[in-house]
């Protein structure tokens, strides 16, 4: 294996996203972790649908398939089933993956085929110039919602939990420190890893994540979870999450008031479905942090391996196949017509 640098993963094509688009940062993180993990160009396959974010495969020096709108998980499924050796990545957007492609995403997550699905969630349709998407905030005025969108937004993480995904993470485009390890863990995970990347579209939805990304105040609005670690957050790491007394729900508490300490907080258990669901919801109300990191991860049977059970132990030669086919055809009743019989 040659040592490939991040830039070796870049194709020769000019990157054509708008200057300042969050997509650049994700592309960079991706190239870096591929380099870090010693990925090979020829064994890496990037599949995408249509959208700004779905242009990503063109910018990678690996194999790439820019398919059609919403269908990347299905294309990737076929490719990975056909060649389990490939390291398959799906890049999609909130429109591509959750609007037209929601069903394929859901079924991919349910099946748990070994691949990574990275959703560039800019809460807008970038490529078609700014209509609201399934993750757009309510009330957003766009060309197709001049009076403000009335659709209730979908929470991609909660959606993934509903679909039964086995690896669910959330990250922010430009926070390479979170995004890098998340992508790396996604790649390592044997099954479908889903990564919701909060991505800024400078043109049509600029600044929606500014609060979370703010260098100073950001930590007050985000909580980075790690398995086995208590759920602490805040600029001064003085806030946390605990189970609300007398009910099955979470609440934000201050570690300074009421004599609470880290011991009163929940410890993150990435195999706990209910916890992941509750964490996914946080961020909607004032004071709540948006949870980043790996919200859920659970080992489970991998679809590809299971699908191959029953296949011949090793690929058959053409002759073996024809011989077996001949035998199969003869499993039905056969009879001979001979010259002499006539």
């Amino acid at each position: 294996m040659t040592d490939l640098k991040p830039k070796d993963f870049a194709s020769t094509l000019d990157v054509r996203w708008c200057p300042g688009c969050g997509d650049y940062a994700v592309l960079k993180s991706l190239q870096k972790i591929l380099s870090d993990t010693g990925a090979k160009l020829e064994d890496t396959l990037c599949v995408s649908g249509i959208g700004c974010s779905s242009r990503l495969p063109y910018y990678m020096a690996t194999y790439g398939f820019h398919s059609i709108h919403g269908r990347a998980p299905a294309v990737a499924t076929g490719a990975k089933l056909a060649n389990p050796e490939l390291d398959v990545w799906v890049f999609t957007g909130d429109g591509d993956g959750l609007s037209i492609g929601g069903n394929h995403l859901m079924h991919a997550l349910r099946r748990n085929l070994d691949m990574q699905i990275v959703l560039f969630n800019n809460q807008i349709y970038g490529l078609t110039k700014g209509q609201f998407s399934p993750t757009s905030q309510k009330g957003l005025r766009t060309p197709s919602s001049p009076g403000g969108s009335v659709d209730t937004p979908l929470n991609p993480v909660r959606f993934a939990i509903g679909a039964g995904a086995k690896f669910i993470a959330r990250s922010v485009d430009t926070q390479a420190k979170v995004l890098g390890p998340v992508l790396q863990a996604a790649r390592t995970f044997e099954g479908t890893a889903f990564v919701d990347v909060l991505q800024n579209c400078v043109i049509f939805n600029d600044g929606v994540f500014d609060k979370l990304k703010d260098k100073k105040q950001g930590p007050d609005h985000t909580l980075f979870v790690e398995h086995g670690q208590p759920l602490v957050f805040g600029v001064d790491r003085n806030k946390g999450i605990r189970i609300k007394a007398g009910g099955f729900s979470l609440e934000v508490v201050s570690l300074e008031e009421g004599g609470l300490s880290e011991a009163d907080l929940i410890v993150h258990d990435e195999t706990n479905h209910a916890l992941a669901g509750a964490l996914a919801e946080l961020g909607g109300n004032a004071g709540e942090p948006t949870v980043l990191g790996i919200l859920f991860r659970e080992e489970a049977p991998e679809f590809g391996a299971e699908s191959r059970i029953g296949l011949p132990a090793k690929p058959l030669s053409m002759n073996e196949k024809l011989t077996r086919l001949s035998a199969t055809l003869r499993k039905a009743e056969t009879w001979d017509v001979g010259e002499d019989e006539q």
Partner: protein
Amino acid sequence: MQNGLERGAANRELPVSQQPEVDYVRVRFAGDSGDGIQMTGTRLAEAAARFGNDIATFPDFPADIRAPSGTIYGVSAYSLNIGHAEVDTFGDEADALVALNPAAVRKYLEGVKQNGLLILDRDAFTERALTKAGFISNPLEDGSLSNFRVLPLEITSNTEKALRETGLSAKDAKRCKNMWTLGLVLWLFERSTTDVEHWVEQKFHQKPELAKANILALQAGHLYAEVNELPSGIERYNIQPAPLMEGEYRSINGNEGLAYGLYAGATLADLELFYGSYPITPASPLLHTVAKLKELGALSFQAEDEIAAVCAAIGASYAGHLGVTGSSGPGIALKTEAIGLAIMTELPLVVVNVQRGGPSTGLPTKTEQSDLFQAIWGRNGDAPLPVIAPAHPGECFDIGVEAAKLATKHMTPLMVLSDGYIANASAPWKLPDFSDPAYQPFPVKKASEPTGFLPFDHDPETMARPWAVPGTAELMHRIGGLEKQAGSGDISYDGENHQLMTQIRAQKLEAIANSIPVQHVETGEATGKLALVGWGSSWGPIRVAARRAQLEGRSVSHIHLRHLWPLPPNLEELLSGFDRIIIPEMNNGQLATVLRSQMPLCFESVTCVKGRPFLVREIAKIIDDVLGA
């Protein structure tokens, strides 16, 4: 013994019959969905085939899974044409109807010929059953069956009687009445019960008491016929073996044939088969059949919908398998956008459409061939792809092989148009001999050499682009649905390049046109007064009618199109040799429209969209109308 002529696809040219009254027997079994009708029919078909007859069958089950018993819409039927001459259709009117309940009589009496034989289960003609079937009086008594030779037997009670000793519950015993009936019918056809007995033993080998009961019932029915004197006017059918070509046979239906053929095709192309599909009537059995080929290396994938199915197949092709997807009209409609992607990316892909009655959900369980427009022209953009169609179940295997060959040789998606009739009908089929030159391997050469590699470079002869699969070192490249620079494959918005690429995609079809066999005359002279041009499952009735007319010395030829798009280059010249050209189709004139758009000849269209193939008589009438009776 065989007449020397090898029929292109079917490979089993047999003498033609001039006396359908003697040469064939058409029998239809009908009864409640729960009566085991399909099994009875299949067994008789099998027995006849093993005996050496030529056969054609047509299962006709209700749209409902299990309709309430005794209703007309709950009737299940199986039609069978047994001949010692060539049998290509399941026949027009039936010579005999075996009806296990009144609803079956009600539904199928119309299809029985004058003076035909009616075998009925008298026990089933209760007041309640008659009412359910909509009879006001009992046809056994009101004289309404006087045009037929009626043989009303106490089938149910005879079965029960025969099984009294077995200790079987009355309900289970009753269930064997189809076996009793089969026994009787086997006697009528001068066949022994031995083969069926073997089959029963195998099928029920885990339930010996059931095996025994079924065999008892079978034998009882046979014995009943032999022992009881049948009324005068009812004779046994003596159908001698047909002079079939030497070889090993089995019976096969179109769905099985196609599934096996696609596997064989992938194999001969030195590829693994990937079949992505979503269930739909009547295409689902393709999925079921491929699923069973797993131990042979075939991978099947039941996707969440048709779009995912075709996309997965495209993904599999990109990764180096032969991607195949199958569905029926409405499902193919959903695949349209993705098929465009396969055209744009120039990946091999086989799309099978087992057509059913349309438009929309239409008549899901009935046959039709009305998706031809969709196949040839049903996409956005200038998006050509080849279309081929099997003529009958026995040709499906070879169509599967050819589909794999054309798709890989020219790097293109391709559509196969089968239909509900071909899919479900079965016929004797000579098992393929893979050492035959017809099955010469056509292994695909995947790209591996980096020097000069250009993913959208085209072979001038086949117009194929190189197939470089992920995993191949140094051939990394990107493909997609956007227009691409000829050669490099990079995205290109350039107008001149788009014009060039549009031409290249069109030239791919020209390359295929040049590589397919020239159009031959299926039967008849190469010029003449009348050409009957058909495709798909209109093959059988046209062939039979045309061959009969030819024997009478009439100037009619049958031209059958296996390659629907591109059309064989010599077609225009060939058709120019006829005074009149008539196209009988099971749609509203689609092939006629296609042909008119391609050559300046006068095409007349005769259409039939009644959920079934043409009757031989309907084709014969066309001939009579043109050439005089």
